[in-house]
C-alpha cells in the first residue's frame, strides 16, 4: 500500500479534503471515501459516461481521472444539482419528460447537459446530441433525453430573461415567467 496523498478540493460548493492513494481514481474516492454514489461505474474505462462529473465546469469521466488531479479543482456531481430540495430545471424536465429509465446513466447525462447549458444557453439539437454522445444510454433511445435538455434550456433562458435566479438553479415549481414549467418540446424534424 502506497503512501496516501492529501488533496484539497471543492465538491458541490463545499471545501473538501481527502487522503487517497496515487493509483485511486476520482470515481473511487467520490464513491468510497466521500460516499457520493450518484456517479456510477459503468465501464471503468472512460467509455460509457456513467461516472461523469464536472471538474472546473468541464465534464470528465471520473473513472479515468486520478483523484490527485482534483487538487484545487471545483467538482460538481449529481448530488449538488438540486438546490435545497428544488430540482434543477434539468432534473424537473427529465422528470416531466420521462427522460430516464433504469437511472444508471442519468447522473452522467444530467451533469453533462448542465455543462453544455452553462456554456451555451441555446444549443441546437445537433449540439445537444453531439455533447451527449459521450454518455451511453441503453434504455431510452435518447430522444426523450434530448427533448428534456431542450426544455430545460428553454426554461433556464426564460428564467434568466425575467431576472429570476441567476445562479443557474431555479425551483421547479416557481416558473416565475408564467407559462408551463415544462415547455412542450418541439417536434424533431
Amino acid at each position, binding site marked *: 500500500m502506497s503512501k496516501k496523498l492529501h488533496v484539497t478540493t471543492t465538491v458541490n460548493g463545499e471545501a473538501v479534503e481527502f487522503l487517497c492513494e496515487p493509483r485511486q481514481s476520482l470515481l473511487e474516492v467520490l464513491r468510497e471515501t466521500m460516499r457520493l454514489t450518484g456517479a456510477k461505474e459503468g465501464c471503468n474505462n472512460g467509455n460509457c459516461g456513467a461516472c461523469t462529473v464536472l471538474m472546473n465546469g468541464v465534464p470528465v469521466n471520473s473513472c479515468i481521472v486520478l483523484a490527485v488531479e482534483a487538487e484545487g479543482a471545483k467538482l460538481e456531481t449529481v448530488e449538488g444539482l438540486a438546490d435545497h430540495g428544488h430540482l434543477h430545471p434539468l432534473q424537473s424536465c427529465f*422528470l416531466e419528460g420521462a427522460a430516464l429509465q433504469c437511472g444508471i446513466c442519468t447522473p452522467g447525462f444530467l451533469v453533462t447537459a448542465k455543462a453544455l447549458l452553462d456554456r451555451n444557453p441555446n444549443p441546437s439539437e445537433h449540439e445537444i446530441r453531439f455533447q451527449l454522445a459521450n454518455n451511453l444510454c441503453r*434504455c431510452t433511445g435518447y430522444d426523450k433525453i434530448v427533448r428534456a435538455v431542450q426544455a430545460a434550456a428553454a426554461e433556464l433562458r426564460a428564467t434568466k430573461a425575467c431576472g429570476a435566479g441567476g445562479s443557474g438553479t431555479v425551483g421547479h415549481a416557481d416558473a416565475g415567467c408564467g407559462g408551463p414549467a415544462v415547455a412542450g418540446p418541439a417536434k424533431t424534424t
Partner: protein
Amino acid sequence: MDAMSSGGSEHVGAERIVAERIDDHQGGDNRGGDPGGGDNRGGDRQGTIERRSAGAAMGQPVRRWDTVAKLRGETRFVDDLPRAGVLVGGTVRSPVPHGRLLGLRFDPAFDWSTVTVVTARDIPGENVCPIVYRDQPVLAFDRVRYCGDPVALIAAEDEETLQRALDAVAVDIEPLASLFDARSAELPPEATVVSAAPPVYGTNNLYRRIEINKGNASEALAKAAVVVEGEYETGAQEHLYLEPQGMQAEREGGGIVLRGSMQCPYYLVEAVAVNLGIPESQVRVVPCAAGGGFGGKEDFPSLLAGHAALLAWKSGRPVRMVYERVEDIRYTSKRHPAWIRHRTGFTADGRLAGMEVELLLDGGAYSTLSPLVLQRAAVHAAGPYACDHVRIDARVVATNHPPRGAFRGFGGPQAAFAMETHLDRCATRLGLDPVELRRRNLVRPGDTLATGQTLGADGNVRTVLDRALAESRFVERRAACAAFNAAADTRTGATRFHRRGIGLSCFMHGTGLNGNAEGFFRSRVFIDATENGRFRVSTSQIELGQGTETIVAQLAAEGLGVSLDGIELAPLDTAVTPNSGPTVASRTAAVIGRLLIEAGRRLRTRVEQFHGGPLADESEFRAAAARLAAAGATREVAEYTPPPGFAWDEARHRGDAYLGFSWGCYVVELEVDLLTGETRPLDITAVQDIGCVVNPMLASGQVEGGVVQALGWALMETAVWRDGQMVNANMTDYVIPTAVDVPPIHVVFLEQPLERLPHGAKGLGELPHEGPAPAIANALRHALGRDFNAIPITPETILASQD
C-alpha cells in the same frame, strides 16, 4: 399547449389510436417526495384517452414513480450499498473453452488464511444452477465447457487482496477439441465419438428440437406456382445494460439474504436453496434497484447469487460480487446467433401456399433458457401471415461458447429478421410490391397462426400496416428515394456517393410466457387496504427502467377505481411479497395487470359490502376502506389461472402458444454512403398494436429504446469471437448507438384489445426489437439493389458488397 394537438388520441372505428408526443403530464409520485400535485383525473386534456372506468389512472402519461431519487443520485443500486464489513468476491475461471478439469493449484506463497475459497467440493447442496434443464454446474468440477467457466470462488477483504488471490490459483486442464460452429454441432444419433472430445451436451449436442406442423407444407410447396428460398443469419448481441451484474449475500439467522440486480427474485430463491441445501423459506431475496436488464438479468443472476451465497455461507461474512465490465461482457449471456432457412411457395397471384422454415440457434455451453428461446423463435418463425401449410423445424445446439440466454425478444427478433427480409426477396421474384405481398397475406381475425392458434378480433394486422404506410408516407418517400438515387450522377461532392432507401417489416410478439408456462407459475399479487385510506400493492415485478412500478400502480388504481395517490407499492422482499412470476416476456402490463385489476375490483366490492352500498365518491370509498382495514385483515389475493378456452398442447406444439399477440409495422428510411460504407437512418416510423396503452409516455419510451437497441444489432453491434472468447469485450470495441446515431422515431400505438384480458393489454417491452433490423435490411436492399441476408450490416459489409 400546441404539442397536445400533435399528440393525444383519436378514435377510428372500433380501435383507439394513441399517437406519440403527449406532453402534459399529470399524476403524483408516492415515493419520490416531489408530489406532482393537481388532479390525477386529467382536466380537459385534448384527446384524452378513453377511460375504461371512472377515476382510474390507466391510459394516462403519469410520471414515473421511481424518478426523483434517480435524478438526485439517491437510488441505491447494489454497488451503492455500504461497503463496511463486506467482503469482495471474485471468480476463478477456465482459461480454455473445453477440457477436463484436473485440479486447482494454490500458490503456497500466498497466505490463504486471509481469504475464503470455495470449490465444487464446498457446495453443501446440489452443484447445479436450476434454470430449465439443470445441466449447468454452479462450479465446474470435472469438465469445463467454455472459456470462463467458473471453477472456484474467492472472497477477500479488499479488491487488491482478491486480485492477488485470483492470480495465485492455477487451473490444470487437459484441453479437449472445441466446438464453435453451431451448424455442425449436432451429432447423428448413431455417431460413435471419433475424436477424443465428448459432446458438449448429452449424447449429440442437441438441447432441443421443436417441430411445428400445420397442413402439409411439402406437398403444398411441390404444387406451388413459385417457390423462393433464402438463408438468413443474425449475430450474437451483448445486452450492455449500463449496470453490470452484481449481487450481495449475507447470512441471516439460519438462512441467507441476497441483494442485487435481477429480473426474477424467485428464481434466486430456488437456485440458492438448491445450492446451499436449505429450504426455500430460508432464502430471502431483496432486490436492489436494477440498472437495466433486457433479459440479461433473467437467468444469469441465479448463477451469480449461487456464487455470492456460497462465499457468504462459508465465510460467515457478507460478500459482494459486482462484475467489471469486461468480465460482464465476456462471461454473461448474449442473444443467440441464428441461422434460418426459408422455402416459401406462392400461388400465381402471390398468396402463401406453403412455408418451410428451418431454424438453428447456437445455445452455447449450457442450456440456460435456450429451450424456451427456441420455442418463441419457432412460434414466431412464420410471422403474422395466413398460410394453411406450414412446417417449422427448429433446433438449438450446444457449442463451447459462453451460454446464450434471454435477450429482449427471446428468439423473436431472429425469426422476424429472416421472415421479413425473405418476404421482400419473394416480392421481387413474384413481381409484386412488397407492401402488396404483405397485404395479401397478413392474418385477419379468425385466421390461424402456425400453431393453429385462432386470432380474435384483435388480429387485424392490416390496420397496423396501413397506419404505418400513412404515417411514414411510404409510397411518396419511396419514390423520393428512387429519385434521389437516379439523380446521383448529377450531384457533385460527397452526396454523389449517397444512396437512399426505405423498407418496412410486419411482425408480432406473443404476450407473456409461452403456452402452459403462465399457468405453471400461478402468479399471485396482493392488495391490502391500509388504515390511512390507501391501498398497498404487492408483486415481485422488478423495476428495470421500463416503468414497472408506475404501471403496476396505475393498473391497481384502475381495478380499485381510485386515483393514483391512493396507491402505495410494497417494497420488494420475497419474505413478504408474493411470487408474481418473472419480470420477463412482456408480461407485466398484460398478465400482472389482469391480476391487479381483479384483486382491485374484488377489494372494491368488499369495501362496498362492508359499507353497505356503492361508494361513488373516492374520498368516501377510501374512508370506508380505512375503516375496513381497522376492523381486520383486508388482503385480496389474485392468482393466475388460464382464461377459459385457453389450450396449448406442449408435446405437439399446437394451440394457443400465447395469450395473444402484439402486432407491429415499422418503416425505416436511410441513407448509405458508398465511399465510407456508413448507413445513416434518416427516419423511423414505429406503429404497433399493443391492445391497451397503460401509460403512453412510458410506452413510447419502450419503443424508442427498443428501436435503438435493435438498430445497434442491425448496423453496428458485432461480437467478435476467437477460440470461443469474445475479444472485443469492452465498450470501445463493441459499439452501441449514441445520441448522434439515432434519427427521429415516430411512435404510434393502436389499441385492438385482447379479449382474454379485462383491460385488453398485450405485451410491449420486447416487440420493438423485432421490427427495425429487417426494415433496415429491406431499406438497404432498396437503396443498393442487393440482398442483405445477414446482420450486423456494418460499413465493412457495405463496402465488401460493392466489390
